[in-house]
C-alpha cells in the first residue's frame, strides 16, 4: 500500500455497502482492490479464508497471530470490515467468526482462476490497427498531457504564464475539474493555485493521478454517470497491458464518455474521438500498481523497463542547504522555485539554495514542510539515495524549524470521548483506538481521549455492549 493508493482507499472506505457490493461484481475491480488497497496482513487473511469451507472462528484467527502482531491484526480486520470484504458474525454462544462476503469471494476466485465470462479485463481489439502506436509514443503523450495540467496550475504562481514554452492549453473540462477539486481558483480571469493545489503538485505522479480521479469520481453523479461504473472502469484500466489496443465496443455509454475525459488527462490515448480502439498509457496501467517500486520493472518480464513518465531522482541537497537539480524541465524548475531560491541555470542543471526566506514564503503560500520534504525525498538523486535517510538530517530539521516558527498550535478535527464508567473500559477503548491509529491525545488521570475518526470506535462500542451485558 503506497501513499498514492491510500488516498483511493480512504475514498473507497467511505462508500456505502450497496456500492461495494455492486463494485465487487467485477473480478478486475476485486483483484485491483486486493492488489493495491489492502494492507499486507489483510491480504494474508483474505487469501487464507478464500478457499475455506466454513467461517473462520475468531479464536482460531487469534491463535494464528503472534501476540505482538495483535495491533496489525486489528488494523487489517478493521479495513476489511470497512470495505465490506469480511463479515463478523456472532453465533448463539457469542463466539465471533468471520467470513468473506459471497460476492467478493466469488469474484476473487474468478480473478485468480480466470473463469467466468465477465470480460472485465479488457477486450483487445481484434482488428489489426494500421497505425498502431508505440510505447514510447504513449509515454510521450501521457507525459505531455499531464505536464500541461500541472503547468496550468503552477505556471501562474511562478510568473510563467503567457510564456509560450508550454504551448498547448488544457481542455475546458479539465479546467472545470481542477476548479471543482479546489486545486486552483480563478479570480479576475487569473488562475492561482490553492493550498490543496500545492499538495497536489508536490505529490508523486501516481498519487496526482489518483487525486484528480477522485475529484472526478466525486463529480461523476453531476455529469450523469454512475459512481460504480466509473470506478470499475478505472480499475479495469489498471489491469490492462501497455502498448495493446483495446476495443471500445464492449464499453457502456458512461465509460465511453469517460474515455473522452481520460484521454484529455493523458490516461488513455485515442487516435480520434470516433476511433474504435483505445490505448491505455503508463499513467493508466500504473493506477493499481506501485509507482515507487523501481524493481518491478526489472523483475517482471511483462513490463518494459523504460523510463517513467517523470524522470526519477534528480535533486541533490548538501548539508549547507545548497540544492542542485539536474533537470531542464520547466515544470520541475517551476515547482522547485516554489520553495527554493534559485540562482543559476545551466542547460541541464539549476542550482539554488534553501533559505529561511524561501521556505517561509512557501509556508505562507500554504505548502507544509512535510510536503517539501516528501517532494525532495521522492526526487532525490540516486547518489543521495545511498544515504539513509536520503536527505541530510540537518536540512530536514531546519526546514521543519522554519515552518514551526510561524505556527505554534496544531489543530485536528475529531471527537473527545469522556465520562468513562470504569477504568478498564477506558483502558480497553484507548488500546483499541491506539491499535487503529486514530488516537490523537489521551489523559489517563481524567479519563479523556481524543480520536480523529469515530466510525470504528462506535462500532466497537456497540459490539462490546452486545457482548458484555
Amino acid at each position: 500500500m503506497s501513499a498514492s493508493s491510500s488516498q483511493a482507499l480512504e475514498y473507497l472506505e467511505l462508500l456505502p455497502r450497496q456500492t461495494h457490493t455492486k463494485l465487487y461484481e467485477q473480478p478486475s475491480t476485486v483483484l485491483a482492490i486486493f492488489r493495491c488497497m489492502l494492507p499486507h496482513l489483510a491480504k494474508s487473511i483474505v487469501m487464507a479464508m478464500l478457499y475455506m469451507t466454513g467461517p473462520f472462528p475468531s479464536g482460531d484467527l487469534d491463535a494464528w497471530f503472534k501476540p505482538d502482531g495483535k495491533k496489525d491484526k486489528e488494523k487489517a480486520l478493521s479495513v476489511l470490515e470497512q470495505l465490506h470484504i469480511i463479515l463478523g458474525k456472532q453465533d448463539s454462544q457469542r463466539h465471533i467468526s468471520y467470513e468473506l462476503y459471497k460476492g467478493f469471494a466469488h469474484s476473487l476466485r474468478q480473478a485468480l482462476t480466470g473463469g467466468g465470462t465477465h470480460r472485465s479485463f479488457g477486450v483487445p481489439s481484434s482488428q489489426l490497427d494500421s497505425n498502431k502506436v508505440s510505447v514510447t509514443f504513449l509515454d510521450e503523450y501521457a507525459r505531455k498531457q499531464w505536464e500541461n495540467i500541472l503547468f496550468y496550475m503552477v505556471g501562474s504562481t511562478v510568473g510563467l504564464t503567457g510564456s509560450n514554452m508550454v504551448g498547448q492549453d488544457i481542455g475546458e473540462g479539465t479546467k472545470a475539474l481542477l476548479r471543482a477539486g479546489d486545486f486552483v481558483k480563478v479570480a479576475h480571469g487569473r488562475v492561482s493555485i490553492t493550498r490543496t493545489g500545492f499538495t497536489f503538485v508536490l505529490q508523486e505522479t501516481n498519487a496526482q493521478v489518483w487525486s484528480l480521479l477522485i475529484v472526478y469520481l466525486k463529480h461523476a453523479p453531476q455529469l450523469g454517470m454512475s459512481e460504480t461504473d466509473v470506478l470499475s472502469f478505472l480499475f479495469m484500466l489498471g489491469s490492462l497491458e501497455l502498448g495493446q489496443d483495446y476495443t471500445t465496443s464492449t464499453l457502456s455509454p458512461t465509460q465511453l464518455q469517460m474515455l473522452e475525459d481520460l484521454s484529455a488527462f493523458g490516461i488513455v490515448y485515442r487516435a480520434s474521438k470516433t476511433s474504435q480502439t483505445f490505448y491505455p498509457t503508463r499513467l493508466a496501467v500504473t493506477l493499481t500498481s506501485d509507482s515507487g517500486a523501481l524493481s518491478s520493472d526489472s523483475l517482471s518480464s511483462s513490463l518494459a523497463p523504460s523510463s517513467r513518465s517523470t524522470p526519477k531522482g534528480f535533486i541533490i541537497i548538501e548539508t549547507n542547504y545548497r540544492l542542485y537539480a539536474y533537470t531542464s524541465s520547466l515544470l520541475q524548475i517551476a515547482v522547485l522555485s516554489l520553495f527554493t531560491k534559485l540562482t543559476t541555470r545551466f542547460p541541464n542543471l539549476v542550482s539554488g539554495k534553501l533559505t529561511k526566506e524561501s521556505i517561509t514564503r512557501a509556508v505562507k503560500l500554504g505548502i507544509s514542510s512535510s510536503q517539501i520534504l516528501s517532494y525532495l525525498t521522492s526526487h532525490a538523486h540516486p547518489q543521495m539515495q545511498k544515504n539513509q535517510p536520503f536527505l541530510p538530517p540537518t536540512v530536514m530539521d531546519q526546514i521543519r524549524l522554519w515552518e514551526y516558527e510561524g505556527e505554534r498550535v496544531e489543530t485536528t478535527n475529531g471527537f473527545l470521548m469522556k465520562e468513562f464508567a470504569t477504568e478498564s473500559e477506558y483502558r480497553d477503548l484507548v488500546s483499541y483506538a491506539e491499535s487503529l491509529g486514530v488516537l490523537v491525545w489521551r489523559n489517563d488521570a481524567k479519563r479523556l481521549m481524543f480520536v480523529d475518526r469515530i466510525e470504528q470506535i462506535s462500532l466497537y462500542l456497540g459490539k462490546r455492549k452486545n457482548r458484555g451485558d
Partner: protein
Amino acid sequence: MNAIDGTDRQIKTEEVPPPSLLAIVLDTNPHAWAHLSSTLPLSSAVSALLVFINAHLASGNANAIAVIASHTHRAAFLYPTPSSQTSKSNANGDVETNGGEKGNAALENPNKYRPFAIVEQEILNNLNSLLTETHELHLTSTPTTLVGGALSLALSYIAKSTLLASPVDTLVSENPLSALADSETMHAQRVPLTSRILIVSVSGDLANQYIPVMNSIFAAQRKRIPIDILKLAGDTVLLQQASDATGGVYVKPERPEGLLQYLMMAFLPDVTARRSLVMPSAGGVDFRAACFCHRKVVDIGYVCSVCLSIFCSPNLPDNLCLTCSSYLSLRSAQTATPALIPRKKKKKKRHGADSATPGGSTPVGSSTPLHG
C-alpha cells in the same frame, strides 16, 4: 517544538513491504505421482499450484515467481522459460509469437488478468514438454528425484534477482563483481528483495543427495532464505532439516486433496507477514546425517578428523579418508570404544521440551515405491 528530535526524523518509514520472490521447486517424480494419483493427481496439484502462484503475484505488485521442476533425470526451469528455448519473450509480453494461434487465444482471454495468463501459459507449456521428453529409460534408471540440483538452480536464480533488484542499478552493472564481493555490507542500502523457496515434495529417500542438498541448505541459511517444505508423500530426514535450519515452514498434509487450502494458509504469507503470524514448523526434527560412502542415514557414524566426512563403516580402503585422502584408521577407534557408545548416541539438538526420539519414530529412509 519538542517534536523535533531524532525520532521524528525519518519522515515516512517505507510501509510498503519489500517485493517478494517465491521460487517453487516442484517435485515431478513420475513414480511418486503415480502412487498419489488416487488422492491427488498431478493435474489437480498443478492447477492448485497455479492458483497459489496467482495469489502470490496478486499479494504484491512487484512480487515475482520462479518455478523449477525437479525431475528424475534433470532439473528444469518451468518459469521463467530459459531464454534459449523461447523466441525472445521480452517487453510487452510478446510471448504469443511462439504460442501459435492457440496461445494467442489464451493470452487474449478478456476474463483473465494478463500477467496471470502469461505465467500460466509458460508453466503449462514447459511442464508439458518436460513430460513428453521423459522416456522409460529415464524412469527405470532411478526412483527418486534431483532435488539437490533444483535447489541450487533456485538459489542461483534468487541470487541473480536480488542483484537485479537493487536500486543502485548502475553501480552493479558497471562492476558486478565488486557488488558480489561486498554483498554483505551493501545489503543494508538496497531495497531488499525478500525471497523464499517452497519445495513441493512427493518422493521419499533423498539420502543419496545428502551432500548437495545440505550444501544448498547452508547457502540458503547464510542468505537468510527460508525453505518451506510441503511434503505430500514420502518422508525424508533431509527436508525437515532444511526447513528447520532456514526457519521455513514444514507441513505434511494429512489430506493431500486439500492442497490449495494448505498452500493458501501456510505458504502464502511472505517473510514480512510471517513476522506477525504463527507458522507451522516441523516439530520434532530428525537431525541424523547420511554417510558419505553409501548415502545411508546413520545413527552412529565415524567422522574423519580432518574434513569431518561421515562414514558408516570403519572399513575404509587403505585406511584413507574417501573425501580428503588423509590417513584415517577407524579400526582402532572401534575397538577402543566399548559398550559406552550406544548410550551416548549422538548429540541431539532438541527443540523445546519435546522428548520423543525422532530416530525411533521415523522409518529410516522410506523410499518411494517403484510403480508399474
